[in-house]
């Protein structure tokens, strides 16, 4: 009685459809941005504040420029570039915070709300999922930060030009905007993306590991190792190494020329970073962390 009526063999699409990796990966990235809107909203919230603050500062701009004219070219340059650097640094700070909170929650949140059971019912591998999540702090957030900073700085430059119109003063000759933008891009992608990649990889691993409190799992082991080292050997190499890495290492420049410019914390050439062993060691470490995160995501059900 329960034998169902056999339907005519339906036309099956299953042999036709094949979604290429690139398209699927692009959707995985889009999914992350859909879920974590702070990835771009944080910048939309902070950038206007910078612009408003700068507008107020503009009032005294002509006077400052005239005073700076008495100084040598290097100082002049620094005075003019300072607000732009400050804007960039503020947005970078936002960028680091957004990346941090994103990474710590990325693989934990889906287990906490059990939605991992839905994501795993789709034909997407754990490796693809983890790579897409890692791509957010390593590639997507640096690029978004760059775009946000670029438009903020363009707006600042336009406002400056409007303010200075008719005063006979100009910042165009002093500010090498093109070079500044290029250095910024380089700093964000290479520094915040790839140089910091082991941090993001570690946070993602903690996120995949933790059954609760992923933030503690991300930080306490690091503190524990530092403490152990201090007690056992009375040294602090581990903590210094982590701090050194955060300060930029060879990705940052000599650091003595112009401390308040992005160029001051950025090397001149790509090759300088790409040939540094620390850069590649970091990427290898990131790969290791991500591989462990893939394994954990595969094994761990919803918590």
């Amino acid at each position, binding site marked *: *009685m*329960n*034998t*169902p*009526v*056999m*339907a005519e*063999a*339906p036309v*099956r*699409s*299953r042999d036709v*459809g*094949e*979604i290429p990796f690139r*398209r*699927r990966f*692009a*959707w*995985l990235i*889009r*999914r992350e941005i*859909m*879920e974590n809107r702070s990835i771009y909203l944080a910048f939309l919230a902070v950038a206007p504040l910078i612009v408003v603050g700068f507008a107020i500062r503009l009032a005294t701009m002509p006077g400052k420029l005239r005073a700076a004219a008495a100084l040598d070219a290097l100082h002049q340059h620094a005075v003019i570039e300072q607000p732009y650097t400050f804007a960039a640094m503020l947005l970078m700070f936002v960028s680091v915070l957004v990346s941090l909170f994103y990474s710590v929650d990325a693989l934990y949140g*889906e287990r906490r*709300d*059990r*939605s*991992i*059971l*839905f*994501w*795993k*019912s*789709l*034909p*997407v*591998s*754990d490796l*693809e999922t983890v790579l897409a999540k890692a791509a957010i702090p390593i590639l997507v957030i640096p690029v978004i930060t760059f775009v946000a900073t670029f438009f903020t700085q363009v707006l600042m430059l336009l406002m400056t030009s409007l303010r200075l119109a008719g005063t006979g003063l100009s910042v165009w000759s002093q500010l090498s905007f093109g070079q500044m933008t290029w250095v910024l891009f380089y700093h964000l992608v290479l520094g915040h993306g790839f140089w910091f990649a082991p941090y993001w990889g570690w946070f993602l691993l903690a996120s995949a590991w933790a059954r609760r409190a992923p933030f503690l799992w991300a930080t306490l082991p690091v503190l524990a190792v530092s403490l152990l080292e201090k007690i056992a050997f009375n040294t602090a190499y581990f903590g210094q190494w982590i701090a050194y890495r955060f300060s930029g290492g060879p990705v940052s420049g000599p650091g003595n020329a112009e401390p308040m410019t992005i160029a001051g914390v950025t090397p001149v050439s790509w090759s300088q970073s790409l040939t540094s062993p620390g850069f590649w060691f970091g990427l290898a470490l990131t790969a290791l962390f991500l591989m462990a995160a893939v394994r954990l995501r595969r*094994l761990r*059900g*919803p918590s």
Partner: protein
Amino acid sequence: MTCIEARGLRKTYGATVAVDGIDLRVEEGRILGLIGPNGAGKTTALNAIVGLTPYQGQLRVLDRDPWQERDRLMRDVCFIADVAVLPRWIRVSQLLDYVSGVHPHFQRTKAESFLQRTTIRPASKVRELSKGMVTQLHLAMVMAIDARLLVLDEPTLGLDILFRKQFYDSLLNDYFDGTRTILVTTHQVEEVEHVLTDVLFIDRGRIVFQRTMEEVESRFAELMPRPGQAAAARALQPMHERQSLGRSVMLFEGVERGQLAALGDVRTPGIADLFVAIVGSRPGAAQ
């Protein structure tokens, strides 16, 4: 073609044995009900089948190893694991976009036409929907995927009776085409038994009963003996006897219906009655 084949399937969590050596073979086109008490290993067995958990023993699903090839297998397998696993932050339209983007066998128009029959709006977020609506949404997504195996783990838990009825009606009328295989676990046995082609009882990690529904109908009978006939009925060795409204109800296996009809009212037992008789009478059972 064989859809699921398991030999000696075993899964332990530390000292706890969740699945204790299951042999199972499910042909394509069957609707198999997996019935068992809480903690019997149903969910663990299903998780192994959909590649969510590693296991010991042999298991092939659509001729693939589910643990090694989960992502590939999921092109042809759908599952609704428990309830309320759809991400709460997502909008219905975003869900449709995303699944179209990653699933080669998802037909968006089909999902949209299912959703048009409901009150679910494309702009709604999952968190704004009632539990019943979330289940409807999940079912609409699953039914728009041209899969060969659908695995449902307590798909109607926590839903009211109207939604539950509608759920199984849609499944039968709009989804099942005789070539697809459906594997379902539920506690609401009465609601699925008319849907099933096969039934399987699982208790403490082992399969204790496995029959097609035709076999259940032809081999099992329930007798309510007329007054004075109870002793004669007992002589035929019922496998189980219970009291209902002051009268005995006896369950027989492999006894001629004609023979029973002479002693009282005979009917085909429900799955729930069979379950109580078989699983409830095992040594160490809860009742």
